[in-house]
């Protein structure tokens, strides 16, 4: 029996997300008194793979097959299903990111394994196997019982603390059994953003709303973000107006994020916006309306016009960065 964790890589490298997943899998394995097997698909050097051991993985199964360069969720699910069966996995942990959302449900059908998606804590109990998951866009949390022998959990990003165990892992290479022709997804083109901090990876996010009044008013917000090493985001009206790209839209129908610090500038805090940011560890609100609902979600607030407060805040950050 094992806890199996799928660790995605980005051009051969892991990131904090991968270590969070392994840390979570290690937590689950302690509850079950079993071991952690991490699965990596793609070309990842042994020096990188071995890092997973430091977060509690006992065994690393590396699958390096050129047919798997493209994410084909059908084939990925079949490869993970084959490894899960071989490793006798009882719990499978996958990120609740775009890749995880593509693979987990297909794997569920293959293994007839119930899915607990977007979990943010260790299981509440083992018998019955009960997980704590976000529902109603963060307005309620559910205790979900998974009744199948094999369970699949997708972990909400930034919801579980990384911890180093100082352990070491063995590495196995696995050649999966699949027909090359079963890869149906063809990628015609890739457009990468470069040099920007990804919203879903960022520890700090600076976000602007309608209170910014015009797309021309963004430079001080971007400057604040750059000074703090933060990603930039926006509310839905801002992306709908085309002031900022839709990739920046955080909220119920946009990106759901959980940074350590979320700075909301000129955002009133509609329910739909809060649904996307309420898991942030700290929220700072800057808004001219002292009754704006964003202040109910925030720990720190400044009542004032965004265009007046932002330059002062930028100066203050420059002062402490000296």
């Amino acid at each position, binding site marked *: 029996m094992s806890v199996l964790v799928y660790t995605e890589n*980005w051009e051969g490298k892991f990131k904090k997300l991968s270590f969070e997943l392994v840390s979570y899998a290690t937590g689950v394995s302690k509850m079950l008194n079993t071991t952690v097997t991490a699965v990596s698909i793609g070309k990842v050097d042994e020096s990188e793979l071995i890092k997973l051991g430091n977060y509690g993985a006992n065994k690393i199964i590396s699958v390096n097959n050129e047919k798997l360069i493209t994410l084909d*969720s*059908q084939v990925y699910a079949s490869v993970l299903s084959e490894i899960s069966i071989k490793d006798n996995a009882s719990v499978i942990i996958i990120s609740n990111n*775009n890749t995880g*959302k*593509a693979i987990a*449900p*297909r794997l*569920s*059908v293959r293994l007839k394994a*119930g*899915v607990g*998606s*977007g979990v943010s804590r260790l299981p509440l109990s083992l018998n019955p196997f009960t997980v704590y998951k*976000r*529902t*109603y*866009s*963060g*307005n309620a*949390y*559910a*205790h*979900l*019982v998974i009744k199948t022998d094999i369970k699949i959990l997708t972990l909400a990003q930034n919801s579980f603390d990384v911890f180093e165990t100082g352990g070491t892992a063995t590495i196995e290479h696995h050649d999966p059994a699949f027909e090359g022709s079963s890869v*149906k*997804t063809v*990628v*015609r*083109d*890739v*457009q990468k*953003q470069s040099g920007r901090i990804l919203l*879903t990876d960022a*520890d700090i996010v600076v976000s602007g709303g309608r209170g910014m009044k015009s797309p021309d008013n963004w430079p001080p917000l971007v400057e604040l973000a750059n000074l*703090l090493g933060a990603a930039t985001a926006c509310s839905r009206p801002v992306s*709908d107006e085309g002031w900022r790209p*839709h*990739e920046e839209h955080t909220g*119920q*129908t946009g990106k759901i994020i959980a940074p350590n*610090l979320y700075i909301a500038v000129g955002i009133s805090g*509609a*329910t*739909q916006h809060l649904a996307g940011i309420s898991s942030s*560890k*700290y929220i700072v*609100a800057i808004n001219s309306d002292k009754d704006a609902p964003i*202040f*109910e*979600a*925030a*720990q*720190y*607030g*400044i009542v004032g016009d965004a265009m*007046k407060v932002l330059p*002062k805040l930028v100066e*203050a950050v420059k002062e*402490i960065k000296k």
Partner: protein
Amino acid sequence: MKILVCISNVPDTTTKIKFAAGNTSIETAGIQWVINPWDELSLTRALELKDDVSSGIKSVTVIHVGPATAEPTIRKALAIGADDAIRVNAVSSDAWFVAAQIAEVVKKEQFDMILCGIESSDYNGSIVGGMISEFLGIPSVSAVSGIKVENGQPVMVREIDGGKEIVTVPLPFVAIVQKGIAKEPRIAAMRGIMMARSKSIKLVEPSTIEPLTEIVEYEKPAPRAACKFIDAENPALLLELLQNEAKVI
């Protein structure tokens, strides 16, 4: 080419969620039910594709797994412009149950393109679309923020970490769509509302399927501490609190 759009019936997104029956279910009294926002965008895009005759799309059907009380939501989809609808007459118990019911229907009636919203705003599962594709053994593309048809072939924009890919798969397939797929949800016009009355909602009795999961309790998110207000003239104090109290910068 025939499109199937899967729709979920969810509380309006501004609903204050209250619990009932000893926190085991949601209090439904007073809730306004709407088409799940991502499904509404999928439907909008499906209709836009059909409007372009060169796409070769002949019909847009919506499917819902739910009891008769969901019919107003299905009628709304018809009023927006779907040609017809299918309702699987069952109370949905979990994602597995819903996906399996939809897959059973698709096995009997051919569809070339199945669109699902990436999640529903009630259970936030993000699993039904992927499950349908695996039950049917057909390709799926997730996190789709754009879709068009070129020479009978779907061409999609798939969101990846830090970028986008232009992706294609053979028909039939499932596209699991997110924000960006359509600019704004299409709104039903009076003519559409009148026409919807005469469109058919085909009733399908459910297959016997056991759910794999069950919600046994709900709880409210932990309340946050009251906001500390800082004078707008003194942003340095905010930074000091973020450094020394919250320890986040």
